[in-house]
């Protein structure tokens, strides 16, 4: 199953809810395309909710990084919330914990954009 993305607004923060696997192929390009579309439409405060993401491979990590770079270069901010232990471990292994702001609680994450 590839990743399914939906988004919703919490104030001026766009929360992107991801469900499934972010892996090489359809899964990773869906993520990339969605982020680019949102930024192009002016959404600058993006919170990616990964609570229902069961699996990310190195290509998926690459898409997270690519998304972060895209959003940041266009003056936006991308943060992460709801990571499972396995995804947190991946970010630790790849040292990307030093790049992304990661939150366990959505409300706290939303407030951090203020």
């Amino acid at each position: 199953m590839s990743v399914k993305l939906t988004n919703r607004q919490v104030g001026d923060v766009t929360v992107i809810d991801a469900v499934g696997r972010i892996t090489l192929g359809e899964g990773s390009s869906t993520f990339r395309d969605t982020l680019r579309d949102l930024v192009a439409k002016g959404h600058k405060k993006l919170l990616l909710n990964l609570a229902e993401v069961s699996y990310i491979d190195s290509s998926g990590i690459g898409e997270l990084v690519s998304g972060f770079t895209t959003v940041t270069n266009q003056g936006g901010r991308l943060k992460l919330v709801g990571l499972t232990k396995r995804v947190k471990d991946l970010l630790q292994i790849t040292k990307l914990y030093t790049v992304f702001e990661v939150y366990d609680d959505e409300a706290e994450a939303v407030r951090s954009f203020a």
Partner: protein
Amino acid sequence: MADNQSGAAKAVETLLESTLDSVDEAESLVIDIATKAGLSEDDLHKLGMAVREAMVNAVVHGNRYNLKKKVHFSVENSPDRLTVTVTDEGEGFDFTRLPDPLAEENLLRQSGRGLLLIRAFVDEVHLELAPPLGTEVRMIKFRSPS
């Protein structure tokens, strides 16, 4: 066929197509074998991820999606370990010259983390050029003592 001295048995030895479907297939095969071998859920996840990364490297970088090239895939089940070998039919590469994905200047690169994850998720990794084939990646996951 079992190797009587080591007790190892080839659980799977097959040729896979150079497609992303083969990545899924290899991951499923190894998870199935490893489950029957009694690996823990955590070890299953890690081994599956490592195999997936090795297969992606073989399909994408080794064989470059060339359908005329195959990925040689085998799983060997020993009393103390599972050994998964993935070999492409590419041209090989210099493993010593790969950029360090953990270097500050490389952290925001989109790719280059596959080997890092393989090494993190299995107990031993052996990379070799395997002429006349391409690159062989042999991954060993030791069984936890019961």
